[in-house]
């Protein structure tokens, strides 16, 4: 009960902060009438080119969460998990009863079972809000999104949209424009990825619709609607701003984590000294 009360209070204060922010932002009446107009590419599309990054704790836990002790004692404060207000609309992920039990088990086993621990490709939407930048390379045809984490990438097909012949880690992305917004329909993802380090998961029936909408020259609003009838009782949605990396020499660099997890995965097969 105590925990629930704390959570409730946190949520209430968060709501208050949001309400205040909204109120202040909305004060000049003209604001709402003039939505931000993003710069255009040579072919007249919204220009999303750039290096972007989420600045939140969604990768720790999509839902509202308090800061907590980390799982590796030796890492102390470095390994502690920061708290966050959550990015799920309405606060809760609508798990079916059995799925809720699996999520709980995932959370308990997260030190060994989170695919991020093994440097596996992150899937969508997790790739977007991992603590690494990603780059949008927008051409007059397709759009490439390249992520720093694990060298993950995907091509957003803007012209031809046949489904992939088999499920994959990053799925199949078919994009189209709705006004200023890039809408991406993501299907064909396998059931091996998680949404966060807290064990939030999905099945191979996952269907994600992402929306990237410019808010200002240096921020995009990112929304993802998540549907999976095998795991959730209804579709649900996350949203967060993405920020442009403004460093003059901004670029995604190399995070080839395979080399960082080989000892973890294969160290047990190492030839022992003297044998």
């Amino acid at each position, binding site marked *: 009960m105590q925990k629930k009360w704390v959570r409730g209070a946190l949520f209430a204060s968060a709501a208050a902060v949001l309400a205040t922010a909204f109120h202040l932002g909305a004060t000049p009446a003209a604001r709402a009438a003039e939505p931000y107009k993003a710069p255009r590419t040579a072919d007249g599309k919204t220009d999303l*080119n750039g290096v972007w990054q989420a600045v939140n704790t969604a990768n720790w836990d999509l839902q509202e969460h308090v800061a907590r002790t980390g799982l590796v004692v030796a890492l102390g404060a470095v390994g502690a998990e920061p708290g966050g207000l959550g990015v799920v609309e309405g606060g809760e992920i609508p798990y079916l009863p059995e799925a809720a039990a699996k999520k709980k088990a995932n959370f308990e086993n997260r030190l060994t079972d989170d695919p991020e621990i093994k440097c596996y490709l992150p899937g969508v939407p997790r790739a977007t809000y991992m603590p690494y930048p990603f780059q949008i*390379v927008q051409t007059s045809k397709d759009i*490439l999104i390249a992520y720093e984490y694990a060298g993950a990438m995907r091509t957003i097909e803007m012209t031809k949209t046949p489904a*992939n012949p088999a499920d*994959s880690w990053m799925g199949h992305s078919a994009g189209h424009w709705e006004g200023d917004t890039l809408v991406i329909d993501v299907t064909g993802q396998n059931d091996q990825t998680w949404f966060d380090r807290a064990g939030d998961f999905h099945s191979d029936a996952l269907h994600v619709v992402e929306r990237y909408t410019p808010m200002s020259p240096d921020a995009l609003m990112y929304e993802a609607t998540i549907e999976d009838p095998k795991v959730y009782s209804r579709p649900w949605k996350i949203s967060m701003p993405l920020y442009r990396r403004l460093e003059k020499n901004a670029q995604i660099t190399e995070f*080839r984590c395979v080399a960082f997890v080989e000892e973890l995965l294969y160290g047990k097969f190492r030839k022992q000294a003297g044998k």
Partner: protein
Amino acid sequence: MKRQLVTSMGSLSIAIAAALLAPASAAEQGGAVPRLADGHPDLQGVWDYRTITPMQRPLELGTKAFFASDEEAAAWERTENLRQNRDAEDSEAGGETHQPGDAAFGPKGSVPQGWAGAGGGVAGRAAYNEFWWDRGNKIVGTKRTSLIVDPPDGRYPAMTPEGQKMADLIAAGRNDTNLGRPHADSYEDRPLAERCILGFNSGPPMTPGAYNNNVELFQAPGYVAIVNEMIHDTRIVPLDGRPHGHVPLWRGDSRGHWEGDTLVVDTINFKRETSFPNSGANLHLVEKFTRTDADTLMYEFTIDDPSVWTRPFTAVVPMRKSDQPIYEYACHEGNYAMASILAGARAAEKAAEAKPSK
């Protein structure tokens, strides 16, 4: 792209026949080079760089830089395809029959450099049969006998003493048959391609290999992105004149610019281990991409690593436009082979211990 292999099996002979009928007129038929709004050539799309033409001119071809006629080229191509046919494997000679290029490449049963990570094997145990292989089966349209165009002999230049010492060490480890199996004390004994750290054919530089010889190019203002099928390797190359960084990277640090209609990508800051056999941290790589017609992208690369070779050398790999999509190659996620190789080596040691000594 693997599926392409299955569907194209039947049409393979027809395709070869068609190529033989009119190889010289292919360029004229290719059509004009498309351009982007900014006036630069449009290099975008999926490019296929399979070919059976080897990196080095086979020793038995001597001073022959080009096949003299279509007939001679076709005959060599036919023989080479038969020689590399993995279904015709000689269980004694093993992988040796499958090596690209000259027949006398290495000691019997050895695995040539750069090939081991592509499912090569030791004698009698070559990994994968022909079904899983998707190497090139045609020689390059220029009828050149090697991808290396300079030095004029089509071979790697002489090595420096330091380079030779390192190459010998690497080769000794690879060709050591004392164990009766490859070295596998730990994952560190295995090649970068097997470890899913670098693709065996994705470079940089890109070199035709066993399968998935595909690359997709993207062009946005100020950038070109080079995305290889193996192993979803993506290089985003700035074209804005910014200087190179200083941090060593697995695929080096690339900067690009246009020289007329040619995209030039300059790469330094490699790690000690690179994708190109025997090259190292001092590698300076220059790649040139020129779209010569609607269907052809000429890819030229120059390797300059003064600590390894006594002079730079240059290779040209023609790439053909593909209308097929590239599917995800999730290498590390499915790398069950690594655990199996290491566990197998430990099991072999245990079995050897259990045997009574003679």
